[in-house]
């Protein structure tokens, strides 16, 4: 198991490094169209071939990996902050506030995740600039993905509210603000960190689903979701394994995250 974890970590680091070095490693820009070579199989010039518009698939995969791997953690950070804020305050204040916040959280959780996501995504303009679509897609994931984490944070904060050290701090006259920021927040850090890491693979998969449904990152900017749209073409599955590289990368990254997270959970348990 230790070897699998080490392999997962090395794989993850290698993929992140390759995507960060896309500017140097990619043979062409992600949007450059080689019109003389559309749908080309792997050649020396195009190691993973080209897509229907003649764009180099390796370059698009590298840039797409960068978009997905940088923005999924950003969305996870946003959702964790929201979860910490809503769940933390609800747990700390308790009583009616906690009930109200948790009722709102239940409302969010009663809707299937993908359903909620496409509904809210559709409320925002669909024909936007590619850079805006990236922000909209990942921003949405961050804004909507807080509910499950908030429940966990609320439970953690509520149990801490009644603990001895908080009672002692209160009895010593520590202000509410100091109690929350100095005494409770550092103790909630492990819960928040766990929720952050758990959110990343969920958001990567959600972005991929949105991309395939045409509600994700807009062309020509690549992301794993928009790259996987190519799979809609039936010939892709039979046409050559190189077309499936983005899918393999996505599965490898999500699996590495799952392996590392499960180990972290085992250790903390």
């Amino acid at each position, binding site marked *: 198991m230790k070897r699998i974890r080490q392999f997962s970590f090395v794989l993850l680091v290698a993929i992140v490094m390759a995507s960060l070095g896309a500017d140097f490693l990619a043979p062409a820009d992600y949007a450059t169209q080689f019109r003389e070579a559309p749908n080309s199989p792997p050649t020396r010039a195009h190691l993973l071939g080209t897509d229907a518009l003649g764009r180099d698939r390796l370059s698009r995969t590298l840039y797409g990996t960068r978009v997905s791997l940088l923005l999924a953690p950003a969305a996870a950070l946003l959702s964790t902050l929201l979860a910490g804020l809503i769940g933390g305050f609800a747990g700390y204040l308790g009583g009616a506030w906690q009930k109200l916040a948790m*009722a709102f959280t*239940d*409302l969010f959780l*009663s*809707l*299937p*995740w*993908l*359903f909620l996501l*496409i*509904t*809210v*995504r*559709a*409320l*925002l*303009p*669909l024909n936007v600039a590619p850079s805006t679509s990236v922000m909209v897609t990942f921003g949405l994931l961050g804004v909507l993905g807080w509910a499950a984490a908030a429940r966990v944070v609320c439970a953690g904060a509520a149990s801490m509210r009644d603990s001895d050290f908080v009672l002692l701090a209160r009895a010593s006259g520590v202000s509410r603000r100091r109690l929350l920021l100095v005494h409770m927040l550092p103790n909630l850090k492990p819960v928040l960190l766990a929720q952050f890491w758990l959110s990343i*693979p969920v958001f990567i*998969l959600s972005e*991929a*689903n949105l991309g*395939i*449904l*045409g*509600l994700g990152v807009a062309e020509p900017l690549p992301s794993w979701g928009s790259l*996987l749209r190519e*799979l*809609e073409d*039936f010939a892709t*599955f039979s046409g050559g394994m190189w077309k499936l590289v983005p*899918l393999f990368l*996505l*599965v490898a990254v*999500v*699996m590495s995250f*799952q392996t590392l997270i499960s180990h972290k959970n085992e250790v903390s348990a």
Partner: protein
Amino acid sequence: MSASRIGRHLATMLVTALLGAFLAATLIRLAPGFDADVQQLDSRLSHESVEALRAERSQNRNIVRFYLSYLHAALHGDLGRSQTLSRPVRELVAERLPVTARLVVWGVLLGWMLAIVLAFSAALLRHAGVHLVGALCAGVLLCIPSAVLALALVIWRAPAFLAIALVVFPKIFSITRNLLERSYELPHIITARAKGISELRVLLWHVLPVNGGQLIALGGVSVSLGLGASIPVEALCGIPGIGQLAWQAALGRDLPLLVTLTVVVTLVTLTANMTSDIVNESLKPRAA
């Protein structure tokens, strides 16, 4: 279980569904481009027709008014008219709900069957191979987007409910396996096994009752998982169900359809969760 408890469950469900629909209506109303209609740009339309379209849209401007009139009409069986499909929403929902229900029910049942068979086999046989096969299948399936699974099944001409089953299976399997593993470490189960009670009897008489409640609760969650997966599955497999309708409504920004679908899906999810809660509570041993 007392009638008052069931009544409380139903009241909570109703309030949550109404609040969910109001939230959806508010978000849709505040969405950019709410007042715009592509039809208004049609050069063939006369000035009067464009004005009529504008007036029709402006009726929906006030969120509360829009929502209250929607609720009033819904109570009288009128769920509005789809702007993109030009058909009554009630007709569309009635037509497509059974399709999704069949797909989700079969998918969830198959997913549960696979998960239970593998998790229980791993627990009963205590064979590393069975454990590995289950963990590997669940691990890989957890990492594949449901839309990719749907596409693969379209290409391989496999039934669509299999995609739902493959989405539900890994989550149910992982949780069930973890529950069983923890149960086998409980002192009374270690004692039972040490006394030489058969593995099947240990599983059915001692392990299952400990985890029954959590497994029943999982039943409600799996309906939500299945409904979520129905969107990419129906959209990509061309199945005319609620998922495909939601996708089309999202792409067309169809307000009445989206609000109704939000309420329908919320109600179905809440009913599933409530049913599992009621079953759970009625199975709990009562204090003398």
